[in-house]
């Protein structure tokens, strides 16, 4: 989230799209009801289904799954053509004024630089025009034909309300109402928050969905202000923490990059990330990249990391290609993987194209499941009839189950969607042999290192040189681990005048204290401060809110630097004054930046210096145009999902995202709309948490059985009665469930054609207290988003029919 859960109560318009906060985030949703109750905020929901969020909304607009970019681009077009933008914000705080270099083009759905064989772009034409002074050229009048603003006008012009309605199926009046409510916040007086989740992410163009939303918020001036923001609602209590700590394969903790094959030395790695400001007087925290990176290496390799050996840079693995989950299963499928350790991971349930996953797992020599529960994955080799129709005699994979504690049986921190790190204490004793994940991993590490010590082997150095300084090497505590993430001074640290600011061994108070000479460590710079010299700040439980704006500055610790709203310098105008009294947040008091939050800015830089407020970007402003930073284009484009019942109405030559990642082996798994005419989407139910709570009796009572939601019209067409058993199949698999026939789903008219959609809740599997069902990912396609490689779970094609006869 750019903002925080508690900040949602400052919104005047709440827009939920690509998510269903009431269903998936009921506790956080309270802040929506607070905004409605106390501010009179309006809630609008755009979703293929009339969801639980829609049940309490002031406006609901239906949309066909996978057509979000068309809808959102239509909103952009509405704002631009009706001049409903926050002009000063756009002029000064976005790159609208930046000129794009010559050579950029967009034709028939493709940007300049496309290579069809590689399914990838050469992005060199997507850059700014750089002036003779080395800075990017700007036109503050926003009139230059190659300035981002004019390019945008041109690019989004085709997305008229009529076109949006034709592509998305949203009635024009309902679409326009959304536009009007969005536009009502483009003034610095009112704010709109956008809440989204995996309904935007899980598409072959997922990252661009979110980006288009960010553009809308920037045009309205809703970034950096209370009640604004583009707010990702994270799906697990600690999935934010997991992303932060770098379990994605291409990143190390704190969103630093894992070195690649093309960066053989530390110098080459750092040189690639050298900060080059694109406008005068620009400052950026990325200029500190070397400090963060070296401190990270010091945490990893301790005393073994010295300037002489580039702090152990050579011991870090170098990436050839990102190993996201789809690729992991692709290599498994090809028989190239020997073993898999699943720690709190149930890929049989979670990964697209389950049949392929099961074949992949069957080719492993061993599978380790570290989990509090017996997952469907740990028992993938068991035959469960139609729900998991495998032949155990043909599967030779050896499965180890290591029982882990549940979250209540261990202490530690969780990082929520608000980026707030909160400590939780152990509430119950572990059962049987269960022990915490860190103990299991420490045990594994210690044993493997011992084997290397005794027997040697290839690539031993990273393990042998690993710093492992825990009081009990077999049981690193959560307290020790959080301290390690925070970092400490290794020698007495002095400021420019030579005064000691931090004595050797003491915890660092902020990442500003990190050094690139090996005198500090800290494996995750963004968390620095959470466990500072004053102790463990994630344990703070002061719920006072002096500003009344839901800041709660002394509750837990929000990374970075305990900041609750990111980019909050943008809550004031270029002169440092609040845009309006209603949205007063951070402002220049004559000598420094002040307000209820920690400024996202150097607190002493005066407005006159005109340093841009988005100090993470070399432009100093936010990006309506993302240059070459996204794989599939500097602007979003409407592409159909890989499986879609219709052609691309705007660019008939291009159906799906041309840069989305599809493995060669998967090219034939997509279904033909003639055979599979019905759109399907997947989602969670509030009664369950993902694939865990089907193991829990009480949750199973609340939602006992897999079902398929469909419109009354589709049910009638197919002869399905409510409560009938139905069969749903895609080109990849089949599931069976009960029919829930509802008014909450309606057929949509897409380009003159009636398109039906069915809804498939994802919580049910073949292990647990709920009725057995085949995993919903038996149906889903294994195509990955062009940027994040997230599978396209949210829009694919199926067919459906009732099952006659006795139902078991």
């Amino acid at each position, binding site marked *: 989230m750019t903002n925080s859960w508690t900040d949602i109560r400052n919104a005047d318009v709440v827009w939920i799209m690509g998510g269903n906060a009431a269903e998936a985030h009921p506790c956080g949703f309270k802040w929506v009801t607070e905004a409605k109750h106390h501010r009179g905020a309006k809630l609008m929901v755009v979703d293929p289904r009339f969801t639980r969020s829609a049940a309490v909304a002031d406006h609901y607009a239906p949309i066909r799954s996978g057509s979000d970019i068309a809808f959102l681009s239509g909103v952009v077009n509405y704002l631009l053509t009706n001049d409903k933008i926050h002009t000063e914000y756009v002029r000064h705080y976005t790159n609208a004024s930046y000129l794009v270099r010559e050579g950029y083009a967009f034709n028939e759905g493709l940007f300049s630089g496309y290579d069809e064989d590689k399914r990838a772009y050469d992005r060199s034409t997507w850059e700014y025009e750089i002036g003779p002074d080395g800075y990017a050229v700007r036109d503050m009048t926003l009139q230059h034909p190659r300035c981002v603003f004019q390019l945008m006008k041109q690019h989004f012009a085709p997305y008229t309300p009529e076109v949006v309605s034709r592509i998305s199926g949203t009635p024009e009046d309902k679409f326009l109402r959304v536009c009007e409510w969005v536009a009502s916040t483009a003034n610095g007086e009112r704010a709109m928050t956008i809440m989204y989740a995996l309904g935007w992410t899980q598409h072959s163009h997922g990252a661009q969905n979110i980006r288009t939303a960010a553009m809308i918020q920037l045009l309205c001036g809703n970034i950096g202000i209370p009640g604004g923001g583009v707010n990702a609602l994270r799906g697990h209590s600690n999935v934010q923490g997991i992303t932060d700590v770098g379990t994605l394969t291409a990143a190390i903790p704190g969103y630093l990059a894992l070195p690649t094959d093309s960066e053989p030395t530390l110098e080459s790695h750092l040189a690639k990330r050298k900060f080059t400001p694109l406008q005068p007087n620009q400052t950026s925290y990325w200029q500190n990249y070397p400090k963060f990176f070296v401190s990270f290496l010091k945490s990893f390799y301790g005393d073994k990391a010295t300037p002489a050996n580039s702090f152990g840079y050579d011991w870090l693995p170098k990436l050839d290609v990102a190993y996201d989950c789809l690729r992991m299963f692709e290599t498994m499928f090809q028989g190239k993987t020997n073993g898999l350790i699943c720690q709190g991971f149930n890929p049989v349930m979670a990964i697209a194209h389950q049949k392929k996953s099961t074949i992949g797992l069957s080719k492993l020599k061993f599978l380790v499941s570290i989990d509090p529960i017996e997952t469907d994955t740990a028992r993938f080799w068991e035959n469960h009839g139609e729900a998991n129709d495998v032949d155990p005699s043909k599967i030779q994979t050896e499965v180890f189950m290591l029982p882990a504690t549940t979250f209540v049986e261990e202490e530690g921190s969780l990082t929520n969607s608000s980026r707030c790190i909160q400590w939780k204490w152990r509430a119950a004793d572990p059962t049987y042999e269960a022990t915490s994940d860190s103990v299991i991993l420490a045990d594994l590490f210690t044993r493997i290192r011992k084997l290397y010590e005794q027997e040697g082997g290839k690539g031993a150095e990273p393990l042998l040189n690993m710093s492992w300084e825990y009081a009990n090497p077999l049981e690193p505590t959560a307290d020790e681990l959080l301290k390690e993430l925070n970092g400490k001074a290794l020698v007495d640290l002095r400021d420019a005048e030579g005064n000691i600011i931090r004595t050797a061994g003491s915890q660092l108070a902020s990442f500003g204290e990190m050094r690139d000479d090996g005198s500090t460590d800290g494996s995750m710079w963004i968390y620095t401060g959470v466990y500072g010299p004053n102790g463990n700040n994630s344990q703070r439980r002061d719920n006072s809110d002096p500003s009344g704006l839901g800041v709660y500055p002394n509750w837990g610790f929000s990374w970075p630097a305990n900041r609750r709203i990111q980019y909050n310098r943008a809550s004031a105008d270029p002169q440092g004054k609040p845009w309006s009294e209603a949205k007063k947040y951070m402002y220049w008091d004559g000598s420094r930046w002040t307000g209820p939050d920690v400024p996202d800015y150097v607190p002493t830089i005066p407005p006159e210096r005109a340093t841009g407020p988005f100090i993470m970007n070399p432009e100093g402003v936010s990006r309506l145009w993302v240059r070459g930073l996204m794989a599939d284009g500097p602007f979003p484009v409407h592409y159909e999902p890989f499986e879609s019942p219709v052609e691309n109405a705007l660019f008939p030559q291009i159906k799906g995202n041309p840069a989305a990642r599809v493995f060669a082996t998967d090219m034939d798994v997509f279904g033909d709309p003639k055979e599979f005419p019905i759109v399907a989407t997947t989602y969670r139910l509030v*009664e369950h948490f993902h694939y865990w709570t089907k193991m829990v009796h009480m949750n199973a009572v609340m939602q006992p059985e897999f079902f398929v939601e469909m419109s009354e019209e589709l049910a009638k067409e197919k002869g399905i009665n409510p409560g009938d058993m139905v069969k749903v199949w895609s080109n990849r698999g089949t599931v069976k469930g009960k029919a829930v026939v509802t008014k909450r789903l309606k057929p949509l008219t897409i380009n003159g054609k009636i398109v039906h959609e069915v809804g498939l809740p994802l919580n049910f599997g073949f292990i647990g207290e709920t009725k057995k069902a085949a995993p919903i990912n038996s149906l889903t396609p294994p195509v990955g988003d062009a940027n994040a490689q997230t599978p396209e779970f949210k829009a694919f094609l199926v067919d459906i029919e009732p099952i006659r006869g006795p139902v078991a």
Partner: protein
Amino acid sequence: MYPPIANPTTEPTPPKFGEKDLIRRSASTVTPPAQRQTEVAKLIDVSKCIGCKACQTACLEWNELEEDVGVNVGVYENPHDLTPNTWTLMRYTEWENPDTNNLEWLIRKDGCLHCEDPGCLKACPSPGAIVQYSNGIVDFVQENCIGCGYCVKGCPFNIPRISRVDNKAYKCTLCSDRVAVGQGPACQKACPTQAIVFGPKDEMKEWADKRIEDLKSRGFDKAGLYDPPGVGGTHVMYVLHHADKPELYAGLPNDPKISPVVEAWKGLSKYAGMAVLGLTAAAGFIHYILQGPNRVSDEDEENADRLAGGSN
């Protein structure tokens, strides 16, 4: 946000109400306390409810109830009705508003409304099986319950359920055990959106007024409070967007009152019945006093003899 109810102290505290605070007791007469306790109420704001069933789960958890894993029958309700273990149930109604053409998904938490004039208590034949505290809570006392199911017939809202296991009636207690130590009911505690709030009934009504004002500003002209006078008001109230059509909300009765049939059964038939029986017995007694026994005389016997003899 309605101010959250603070957690209770860990020190043992005497319950805030008990036997002495009874204002009604089934099949018994009680002397009501001179001073009524502050009347409490649970306010369910349907317009804030997202139907997450947290209340339903919290109810099972707090009251240590075990419900069976059922099946899906094509709806979101699970279980499919209130049961002896499910004392509260989310009910979902899809309604296309003819005035706006908008679909509305009306979600109502069903359960005991704790009537000021409780029909269950009126119908109950077992002394002390149903009691009403002066704060308004209507509670079932299972050790006195005989499982006759009369409460089911007495209730205007079809709430109580009889357990097949122990033949006792069960329903929402408004967490009288929690309220007794100054807490709100478990459902209220669990509600993530404050669709359920709990407190003094007066304050709940004020809170509801603000909600109704907000709903009216959003075009729900008929928004209002459901506190039906037919049962003397209730201690569980609803804020409804369509207070003029409560039956939209999964059949919430429009003007609930204790059924006249039940009134006749527990009123007229009792008194008339007692009178009929008393009068009949008295008539017999008086007749006997006045008339004495109707004896067979010797003459009758002789006549009979003669008859028999004659025929022989």
